[in-house]
Structure formats: structure tokens, C-alpha cells
């Protein structure tokens, strides 16, 4: 790419979407994912799948307190190591305050914060260079085209004007707003504004990305697209993500760790995968016939059985016992199995349990 092409007007012809094929790795502007690149990305994901405890903490806070006219965050201590950490909590739990504190917008009353191994108090500016932020509310600079807005944000993050312009174009195509990049940002729909906010947050390739309610106000397809982008960024392995949301499904679909806040305190911090493994899969069975006899039969097979309510049996099968054994048992006892479903504790169960615990 020559310098002469580097104007907002002329670069547009260069950055029209090029078809990306496995062989198309020679395109200088948009090299397709080559084998090496794929290996690198897969490798990164593999490293991300290492046991969480082996990874260095992305975020670390020690006895973190933030007070305004009342305590908002109350002695929070945690080490977050996930590649994508969900920040959950009811309204007023302190999610946004925690994000604002991590971004250096408000000073902690006491306690320490470390981001990617750097003490926040000693180097605000340095840490902010590694961070991207997508605010919850509409945030943009009036009277600017999308591309100019994102380019300016990239330059403010320390990219040279030339690289900032290139990345602004690329990131607009990446988030799916390529065709709208020359439109004034005031004229964007809500979904487009959300994507533009994501674009400005990732244009400088941050090492840590804070997303505050990224799917706010999005329709189902736009929401799916946003979550897909978050998963892709997470899977790249280049960026750690912290997502604050009150939508459990969103967190469940893209996060590997969850921090649940309640009244400014940590109610639960868990690795979702480990939590799921710990909460073994169980069967929910509905039968017609002699329930007591069937339950005894299940126990004789070595199943752990519970009866949450009438005509519903919760059973955890031991190693070696399969569903067909249950059907055989039912036939033997002349019991009719009306419904049989595999169940697992969902994030909602985890969240509600955390809310119930004092």
C-alpha cells in the first residue's frame, strides 16, 4: 500500500470486501487466515484452555473499596484469570462502578488493583494504553463519520495516523459496518451504534477489553452477531475480555469465568466449566406407575435419587449405567416412562444461588 492511497476518500476502493479463501493469503491489505495464522490462533485457544489456575491473573484486586456517599464496592478481593470474565449482578450491585474503577475513572478509597500485572495506581496512562472500553450508554463524537470517529480513537490510543486509518477501515468491515463507515455516526441505528462502539474499543488491539452491557437494546440477530464477535475476539487469544451484563444468557454464551456481585461484594466467583463439571449432569424422569418401587430399583442400580416433586424423579447415573438400563427397569416393573430429560445446573441456577446466599 502506498502513501498516496492513504486518504479517507481513496482508500475506500482498496478496502472493499475481498473474498477470503484459504489460498488468498497474498492480499496485502486483508491477508486471509493462513495456515500459520490458524495454527497460531488455535494454539492460543489451546493455551486459553489451560487450567485457569495456571494462568497469570488478568485482573487482580485486593481489598478494593470504593465509597461515594456510601460504600459502593466493599473490600473486593479476587484474581480474575479467564479469557472472558462475566461481571454479573442485579442493578446497583456495583458492576459499572467496578468497571469505572478498573478504567481509572474513579479512585479507589482503599485497596489495590493490578491489570495485566501492572499496578493501576502507578501507571494509569500506561495501563489505559492496553485497554479498550465499550461504554453502556450511547457514546460518540458528534458530527463525525464512523470511520473518522474510529480513526481518531485509534490515534488517541497511540497508533500513527496511517495505521489508525488502515485499522479503522478493517475494523469497520470486521464488525460488519463496512458499507456504513462513511455515514455520519448520528444517523446510525442503535444496533449500528453498538457495533461502532465495539469498533472503537478494539481498533487499537487492546490486551484487555471492557464491555459494558454490549447487547443493550439489540434485536435478536444483532445480539447474536455481537455475541459472535465477542467469542471471536476471545478465541483470538490476543485479548482478554471483561463483560458486564445482567443478561445471563449472554454471559453464559461467551464467558469462561463469572464474577457475581451483590451489594458491592463478591457473591460468587467461579469458572463456568469447572462449575458445570462439579454440577454433574442429572436426569429428570417423569413416570406413571409405582414410583416407590421404581425409585428403589434405581437405587439398586447405584443411582443417586432425589424426588423434587410428585411424579418427578431426579437421578444421577453412576459409571456403566445407561438410559437403556432405566427402560429395562421400567419394563420389568411395569412402569411407564412419560418423560426423560438430561439437565444441568444453568448459570441462572448459579446466579440465583449466589443471590440467595448471605
Amino acid at each position, binding site marked *: 500500500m502506498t502513501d498516496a492511497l492513504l486518504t479517507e476518500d481513496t482508500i475506500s476502493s482498496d478496502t472493499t470486501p475481498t473474498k477470503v479463501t484459504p489460498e488468498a493469503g497474498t492480499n496485502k491489505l486483508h491477508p486471509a487466515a493462513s495456515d500459520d495464522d490458524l495454527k497460531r490462533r488455535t494454539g492460543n485457544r489451546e493455551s486459553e484452555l489451560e487450567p485457569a489456575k495456571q494462568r497469570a491473573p488478568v485482573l487482580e484486586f485486593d481489598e478494593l473499596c470504593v465509597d461515594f456517599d456510601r460504600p459502593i464496592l466493599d473490600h473486593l478481593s479476587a484474581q480474575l484469570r479467564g479469557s472472558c470474565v462475566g461481571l454479573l449482578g442485579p442493578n446497583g450491585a456495583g458492576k459499572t462502578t467496578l468497571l469505572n474503577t478498573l478504567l481509572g475513572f474513579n479512585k479507589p478509597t482503599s485497596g489495590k488493583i493490578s491489570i495485566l500485572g501492572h499496578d493501576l495506581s502507578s501507571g494509569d*496512562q500506561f495501563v489505559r494504553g492496553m485497554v479498550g472500553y465499550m461504554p453502556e450508554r450511547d457514546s460518540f*463524537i458528534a458530527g463525525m463519520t464512523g470511520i473518522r470517529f474510529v480513526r481518531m480513537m485509534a*490515534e*488517541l490510543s497511540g497508533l500513527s495516523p496511517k*495505521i489508525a486509518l488502515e485499522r479503522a477501515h478493517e475494523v469497520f468491515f*470486521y464488525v460488519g459496518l463496512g458499507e456504513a463507515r462513511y455515514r455520519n455516526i448520528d444517523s446510525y441505528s442503535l444496533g449500528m451504534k453498538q457495533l461502532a462502539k465495539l469498533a472503537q474499543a478494539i481498533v*487499537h488491539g487492546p490486551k484487555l477489553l471492557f464491555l459494558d452491557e454490549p447487547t443493550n437494546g439489540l434485536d435478536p440477530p444483532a445480539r447474536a452477531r455481537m455475541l459472535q464477535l465477542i467469542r471471536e475476539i476471545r478465541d483470538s487469544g490476543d485479548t482478554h475480555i471483561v463483560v458486564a451484563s445482567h443478561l445471563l444468557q449472554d454471559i453464559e454464551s461467551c464467558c469462561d469465568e463469572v464474577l457475581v456481585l451483590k451489594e458491592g461484594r463478591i457473591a460468587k466467583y467461579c469458572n463456568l466449566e469447572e462449575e458445570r463439571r462439579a454440577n454433574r449432569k442429572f436426569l429428570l424422569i417423569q413416570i406413571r406407575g409405582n414410583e416407590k418401587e421404581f425409585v428403589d430399583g434405581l437405587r439398586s442400580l447405584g443411582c443417586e435419587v432425589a424426588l423434587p416433586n410428585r411424579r418427578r424423579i431426579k437421578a444421577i447415573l453412576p459409571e456403566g449405567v445407561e438410559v437403556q438400563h432405566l427402560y429395562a427397569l421400567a419394563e420389568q416393573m411395569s412402569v411407564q416412562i412419560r418423560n426423560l430429560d438430561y439437565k444441568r445446573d444453568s448459570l441462572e441456577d448459579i446466579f440465583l444461588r449466589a443471590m440467595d446466599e448471605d
Partner: protein
Amino acid sequence: MAIFQKAYQGYAGELTAPLQRTLVIFRYALADVFQSRIFTAFFLLCFLPSLLLLCVIYTYYNLELLMQFEVPIEDFIAIDGTFFALFMQYPQMFLLFVMIMSIGPTMISPDLRNNAMPLYLSRPINKASYIFGKLLVLLFLGSLISWIPSLILIFLQAYLAGDGWLINNLHLLAATVVTSLSWIVSLSLLAFAISASVKWKAVARLFFFAFYLFGSILGEVIKAVFGGWGGGLVDISSAAEVLVLAMYDADASYMESSMEMPIWAAAFMFLAVSVLAALVLTRRIRAFQVVS
């Protein structure tokens, strides 16, 4: 390339120096200012007084031309500190006031109205860099129409006058730079403070003008009631007049100065306006709002 069309990748390239990030704000704000054709036309007109003065100074030293137009040279006032204060500094200060009133109050309020501060402040710049970046626009444009042409005019006069004129009037160089910069900085910070406090551009402009107007009226009222120069402490235009008279060593009989305040009080007035405005700015410019 860092971000692929269908895959995301971080950036590990070189970063610019922190000062360059302040200049980013300056560059973009400067470009925004010139999006208005009316402002561009006004800005070009601001060079007219300096061009006229250039012609006057040239004509003053061109006897043939004066005789051709039958202009008696004794009708011309001497080109000295009073001349430059009257015909150069005052018109420039008026133009600076109009320029700052037209663009100053519009520079911060749109960012606050559109919640852009979290976007700026989550990046490696701070409030001071943000304000300085915006201030640079007014300093740059203000300098182009005030002390820079003034210095050119003074040097032209020195060249044409010869005989050590510059040595005798060396104070004029400092006078034009100091008075222009004091005026630009204090008015700009005041405009920014109003812009940060009022969401709408037109209202912010109105407040800025009202501050100037009511300051003058209040100053006169205080002078009428209590006497002395105390009224000058609320009237920035009087303070500016006193500063110009003193710095240019100008003949006060040509001026309409009504406040006989000491120069230290005038300097204090500028300092106080700047400090108060900066305090308001630092309070108003924040990345988030505390809901109590």
C-alpha cells in the same frame, strides 16, 4: 495487517509519544472548526486589519505616495506604542473575542452531551491533555490573527523607520505577545468552562457574551457606587485595557479607559478568570456521573 477480514488480531506495533495524542485532539478539533464556511470566511476577514495597517505603515514611509495623494504627513500620528495599541491591539482583541465566542463555547459541550468523555478518558490521555488539545486550537488560530501579524508589523516598522527604532520600542514585542496570549487563554478557558456547564451551543455562546456584557455593566455600577478601581475586578474588558495601556506604554488620553486600576490588579483579574475557569473545567469534565 493487524485485523483480518474474518479474524481478529491485536496490535503490537509502535505507539506514538504522549504529546502526539494531545495533538490528535488539536488536529481533529481544528478540522471541525473549519467545517463551518461562515467561520472560515470570518477567519480570513480577521487578517484584513493587519493588511490595512501594513499598507498604512508602508504609506507612512513612502513620501512620494503621500504627496501624490496630497496627504500632509503632520496629520499622521506617530507610529509608536500608542499607535500599535490603538490600531492593532484593540481591533485584534475585538476579533479574538468574536472568534472565541463563536467557536470556544462549542468545543466541549458536544462531547459532554454525547457522552464522549469515557471514550477519551479510557485512552492514554487525561483531562489536562484533553483541555490543552482543545485550547491549542484557539491559541493557534488566535495567534495567527493577533501577535504573529503584530510582530510582522512591528518588524516592518522597525525596518522602515531605522535609526534604532526597534531598540527604543523593544517593549512592544513583549506587549503584543503577552496581551494577546493573556486575552486568548483567559477567554478560551472561560468559554470552555461555560461550554462544559451548558449543554447547548447557542446558550453557551449567549452565556459567554452575557459574562462579558454584565461584567462591564457590573464594573461600572461598582465604580459608580463605591468609586475607585474595584469595579475593574469584575470587568475583563477594563482589565485588558489597563494591561494594554501599561504594556504598550501608550498615551491614555487616546483611550476610553474608565478604570484606573493598577496593572497588578489587571493581571490578577486575568489569572483569576483563568484559574476559576480551569477549576470549573476539571470538575465538569469527567468520565462518569455519580448518581447519589
